[in-house]
């Protein structure tokens, strides 16, 4: 039982919630660029929250299912059709054996996630996530290609056939925002005070533009060149998802899901975890403005979000049981 990749799309990778436990061996976390929408998509199809999903970028794939199953999309706005019907994101969709899904171009935002009931991908070092640079995980450590086949677990692949599917839609607004004008909240980093006075002000006032060489490793930002008051020599230190680094060229890089485990550039900020999903939707050419937040508030927002998300997922599971 499998899903055939008829067209892979621009950059479609298998991802789960990330690869942990091997960072001291230089193996990064990878995983989805947004850790909320994929969990909702998995809940909608009755999968575990850490099940692998397909991360779809800008132009989506065309897939054929050789067995009936249930799928759900969550993320940016992409046109999608199953057979001859248009399908919406944020709700479960039953597909029949032999049907195809065609996911077109994003009309807003950059990435969406497709959960497939029963999708089974071999784990490597504890995760199915594709780490393209390390060439491990997913399908042979690479993005999907035309002609690939993804396996469906026979035990889990029967479709949900939820009653009243039209009533199933999750309201994405609390969870998802691809508005490019929304400020990205940033906690001052260890080397913020080492910036010169003008750069300290510009970091929170000036607009930055996402450059075309941005990817899953990092989002590169062009704008005013930021400068340190005096050069600092750093030895390599561990990094986190959301660290804002300042390389010598003065253009900050926001480290994303496939960031390296260690690096040696000054850390001028740390993006609030709750805003990483928003940043993951910015396209090349779109704007990023930073708004200052303190770490205590960022933690509070994160805990509030996780509590609300746990409630939503419990409610989805309740409805699945009742269907």
């Amino acid at each position: 039982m499998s899903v055939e990749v008829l067209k892979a799309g621009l950059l479609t990778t298998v991802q789960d919630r990330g690869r942990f436990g091997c960072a001291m061996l230089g193996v990064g976390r990878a995983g989805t660029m947004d850790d909320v929408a994929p969990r909702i998509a998995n809940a909608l199809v009755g999968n575990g929250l850490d099940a692998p999903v397909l991360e779809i970028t800008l132009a989506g794939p065309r897939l054929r299912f050789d067995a009936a199953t249930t799928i759900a999309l969550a993320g940016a706005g992409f046109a999608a059709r199953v057979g001859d019907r248009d399908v919406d994101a944020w709700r479960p969709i039953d597909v029949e054996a032999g049907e195809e899904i065609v996911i077109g171009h994003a009309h807003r935002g950059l990435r969406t996630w497709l959960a497939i009931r029963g999708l089974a991908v071999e784990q490597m070092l504890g995760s199915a996530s594709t780490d393209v640079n390390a060439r491990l995980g997913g399908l042979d450590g690479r993005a999907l290609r035309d002609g690939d086949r993804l396996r469906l677990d026979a035990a889990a692949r029967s479709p949900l056939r939820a009653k009243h599917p039209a009533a199933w839609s999750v309201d994405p607004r609390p969870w998802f925002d691809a508005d490019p004008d929304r400020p990205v909240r940033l906690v001052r980093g260890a080397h913020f005070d080492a910036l010169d006075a003008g750069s300290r002000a510009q970091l929170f006032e000036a607009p930055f533009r996402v450059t075309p060489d941005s990817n899953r490793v990092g989002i590169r930002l062009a704008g005013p060149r930021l400068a340190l008051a005096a050069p600092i020599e750093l030895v390599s230190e561990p990094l986190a998802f959301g660290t804002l680094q300042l390389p010598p060229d003065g253009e900050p890089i926001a480290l994303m899901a496939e960031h390296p485990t260690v690096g040696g550039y000054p850390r001028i900020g740390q993006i609030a975890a709750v805003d990483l999903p928003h940043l993951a939707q910015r396209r090349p050419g779109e704007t990023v403005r930073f708004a200052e937040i303190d770490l205590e508030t960022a933690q509070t927002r994160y805990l509030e979000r996780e509590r609300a998300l746990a409630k939503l997922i419990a409610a989805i599971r309740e409805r699945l049981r009742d269907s």
Partner: protein
Amino acid sequence: MIASPQTSGPLGIEALGESMLLIRFGERLDDATSARVHAASEMLQAACLPGIVDLVPAYATLAVHFDPLAWIDEQSGNAVRAIASAVRTVLGAPPAMRRHDAAHVEIPVLYGGDEGPDLDALARHAELAPEEAAARHAAAEYRVAMIGFAPGFPYLLGLDPALAMPRRATPRTRVPAGSVAIGGVQTGIYPSELPGGWQLIGRTPLQLFDPRRDPPSLLVPGDRVRFVPIGRDEFAGRMRA
């Protein structure tokens, strides 16, 4: 030797967001600082604090990646403060006996020739004969300070200062797997074919990293390494094996 993670005074702990602490033991590349980092890493592993998903030793710092939901302080909601306090308690205790003696790993290396195309440049830079430069590289005992850049890439401390050499002005787009290299005062080994700017002085037939092997990495932080020169025939034989 049992190193205490703490020298004196309170540890510097920095939060990188909601789910990582960075504990600082110094600012420089030196063996004593690295030993404190590894001792702290071992103490935190042994302490089994809840919700820790990764410990990452680097030259002078140790990262603790954690799940904030495991450290919610109901009163303040401040998970970072709660885990930082627990980490200080663990690292403030007297160091326990080492559970694991550092492994001593010998790495066979074919120096120079096609496998070490920068050995001659290194020798000129160090004003040594190429054989002497290789012999000095193989004479030292190194410490795996950290693994990073790519899975299984060890950053080794202990290079003879005479062999320190800046990176190449133009990095190579493809460095073969197993290349033994010098970058500044560090030496390391490329575990897979990668782009890289370090000076290539030799190559090992060993496979440093294989995600399907258990353990996947030949080396872990804290290991001791010696390079053992081998000849072309032995290199070729072991590459075929």
